[in-house]
């Protein structure tokens, strides 16, 4: 009688790609809750809308590429991309912004490059940048945090939010406003202390920016959950946050009118934590070795700071990540780990000696 022939190893660990992806989605929940609490239903609607769009467009592409639907949809990677994009977009932005961004992420940035595992750029960030460049108005209209809403105004309820999103109407004045990073960037001639006193986004904050500090704490918590589940190693996020912190200490400038802002402001505003734990940890488009991830994370932290401080955009995670994606293969080339039994680290492009 003949037995089945299989190659070793025969045993297999319990984690599956689908589970990894599901955990990533679950880890966004604290951040999503913070966003919804402080900025209303918009983010939740963004996320759901993006997920639906992602699944449908991924299914269509798979159909055209003649790939088995259930098998590839089952890896949940499209959902992860959609969730991250949905979280990054401004709450209550028009539905077509979400749809265009998601289609771009899933179809162009991922599937056209060969699908999961082959995309050189972070799909969610590609979608985000395309939107930011194409629809700057919609992309920079943020919602006023709950604590700072004028007397008598509240965030639209769920039904009203849906109506706003699908009618593409701008929300009433008063509930929209700038983000802390935005506001900080566009106030010139004031010292940091003056800004902090004048701008309620800062004056009523615990340490960084009203609402935003909670959002960032939420993503930090999600990141710690993923770290403790060993979904990724600490190298990338820690390197990025440390570099960002270091840069803002070096250029703190004791809070003069030229100062690009404090360390706390940079760490707990905008997409800092989300970027550190959810965006730059996207394994496909990042570097492969731990040393490589240190360099990669540091590079992103560095770029984020430079763009925030001296560039044209108040937040910069998306640009920084995409730029670092460009550099990833190059970083990889010089950061091979030292193999057992070798005294030197090799370069990936080294030829075998003959």
């Amino acid at each position, binding site marked *: *009688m*003949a*037995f*089945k*022939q*299989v*190659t*070793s*190893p*025969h*045993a*297999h*660990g319990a*984690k*599956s*790609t689908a*589970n*990894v992806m599901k955990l990533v989605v679950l880890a966004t929940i604290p951040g999503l809750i913070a966003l919804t609490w402080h900025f209303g239903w918009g983010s939740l609607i963004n996320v759901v809308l993006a997920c639906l769009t992602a699944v449908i467009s991924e299914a269509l592409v798979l159909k055209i590429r003649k790939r088995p639907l259930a*098998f590839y949809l089952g*890896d949940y*990677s499209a959902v992860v991309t959609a969730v991250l994009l949905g979280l990054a977009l401004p709450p209550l932005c028009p539905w077509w912004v979400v749809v265009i961004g998601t289609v771009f992420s899933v179809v162009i940035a991922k599937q056209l490059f060969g*699908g*999961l*595992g*082959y995309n050189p750029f972070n799909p969610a960030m590609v979608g985000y940048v395309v939107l930011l460049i194409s629809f700057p108005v919609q992309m920079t209209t943020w919602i006023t945090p709950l604590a700072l809403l004028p007397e008598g105004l509240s965030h639209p309820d769920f039904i009203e939010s849906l109506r706003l999103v699908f009618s593409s109407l701008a929300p009433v004045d008063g509930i929209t406003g700038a983000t802390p990073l935005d506001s900080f960037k566009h106030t010139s001639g004031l010292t940091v202390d003056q800004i902090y006193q004048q701008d309620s986004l800062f004056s009523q904050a615990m340490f960084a920016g009203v609402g935003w500090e909670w959002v960032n704490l939420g993503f930090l918590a999600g990141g710690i959950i993923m770290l403790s589940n*060993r*979904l*990724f*190693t600490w190298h990338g996020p820690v390197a990025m946050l440390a570099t960002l912190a270091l840069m803002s200490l070096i250029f703190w400038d004791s809070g003069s009118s030229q100062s690009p802002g404090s360390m706390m402001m940079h760490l707990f505003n905008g997409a800092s934590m989300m970027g550190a734990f959810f965006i730059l940890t996207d*394994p*496909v488009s*990042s570097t*492969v*070795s*731990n040393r490589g991830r240190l360099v990669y994370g540091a590079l992103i932290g560095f770029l984020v700071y430079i763009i925030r401080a001296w560039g044209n955009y108040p937040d910069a995670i998306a640009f920084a990540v995409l730029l670092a994606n460009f550099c990833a293969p190059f970083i*990889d080339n010089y950061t*091979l*780990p*030292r*193999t*057992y*039994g*070798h*005294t030197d680290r*090799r*370069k*990936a*492009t*080294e*030829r*075998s000696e003959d």
Partner: protein
Amino acid sequence: MRQTWVTPGGVHPPENKHQSVTQPIGSLPIPEKLVVPLGQHIGAPAIACVKLGDKVLKGQKIADPAGTVSVAIHAPTSGTVSAIEARPIAHSSGIEALCIEITSDGKDQWIALQGIADFEHTTPKTLLSIITDAGIAGMGGAGFPTAVKLNPGFHRPIDTLIVNATECEPYITADDALIRERAEEIIEGIRILSHTLGNPSNILIGIEDNKPEAIQALEPHTQDTGINVVSFPTKYPSGGEKQLIYILTGKELPSGQIPADIGIVCVNIGTTYAIKRAVVEGEPLVSRVTTMTGEACEINRNYDVLIGTPVSHMLEHNKFDAEKCSRVIMGGPMMGFSLMSKDIPIVKTSNCLLAPSVEEIPHNEPAQPCIRCGMCAEACPASLLPQQLLWYSQAKDYDRLQSHNLFDCIECGACSYVCPSNIPLVQHYRSSKSDIKKAEEEKIKSAQARERFEFRQQRIEQADKEREAKRAARREAALQAKKTAAPNSAADIVAAAQARTEAKQLSPEQEQAKLERAVSSAEMRVQKAQSKLDTAVASEEPEDKIKILSAALSGAQQKLEKAKTRLAEQSN
């Protein structure tokens, strides 16, 4: 407690060792027919020294070692040689190889055995030849002839003897059981080893801390012997030779070198037991302890199995249920290979026969794309980047594969074990490795072919010239003959023809010289092949390469024999 070092990476698969150690080592009824492969070790297969129909006793030598890197093979029980032919053997690629089949007479009658009571006054050289003649090759996995390992040469002084009792693969308990029951003999074996190596200053038994009973069993026997039992945290693959060396000594084996180069000899603990039996009792290696485990068998335990016992025999006696079984594995779940058929025999390296149920080891899930999550790199004990190796394997980028140190991969399977996308990484590496080797061999071959071609070209030119010269001479002779006397009689014509053929033939002296040249060049070729094989073995080249080289050697030897006989015929 001695200091130990921690290797990078590693995984903790469920151990599943308890099932097979609840009972002591058992024995099986003698199978009707035993199939003993001639090549159970790395190196040249042994050469059969019995004929079909010969009666043999248990322990009688049935095959001689072929050259230095080889060991003898013995009859595992008494009976009759009933076949010498190619049979499927235990090999990952399911190949057939020459085997001797012995039909048991049921008496299990030993030949007369003669051991050495006092090994301390025996020269290492004698001990080594006893070890080779007893057929002892590494019993932990690869099956490297032990005597070769124990004889590293003067330029490689040995200061550390490592006895590998790690047994890091899940399910396998053969060494564990052996230590629990026969610790005293094992220690005796280690002392013999130490003696043959000139008493190295460090003797370490490396064992994982999941075998407390075994550690306890060893302790009373190691007191005041200078032998250290070193236990360290359980992690797969601590039992890999390179990993164990690092764990116990903090030294890394430089890539491409063998342990003896850094003064270390590593021997599996099962082998030390076999050495004790061989030296003290005079008993050749005809049986080994093998773990029979897995849910598809009702009985899980260790057995003293005769070498050559068909797998089917073991399965039957342990109430094997083919319905439940997902695959039959020789070895452990991480590095073992699945067997094609039940007829494959147990050999000297078979430490485990695993018949898991489908629930235990499910059928493989289809592979998903690599998401480059890096879990494989975290798990790799050699600090490789498995995901990059996969990428370049698929792209067949051999240069990149080598710059990513593909050949330092020990094929432990830790990367595939953790891969969430179920990618059979090791399979990709194996095929890339063999592709690269093939390409290199081809390079060598084509260089040789070019040489041969040029040589032939030269010869042809030479021959042409000679022929031309002869023709000219003949013409000259004919002209001369015409001049002197016109051929007028038939006798003249015949005589002239005879003269011509004689002129064409070589003189006996010339013939002799030519054959002598042939013999000496054949000798050269044999020498070359031998030295190639030796260096390959010394640098622990992979098994298949050594097999190719030993085949080349035996080819060259045959040619030499032929040349010699022809020369002998000529001189008579």
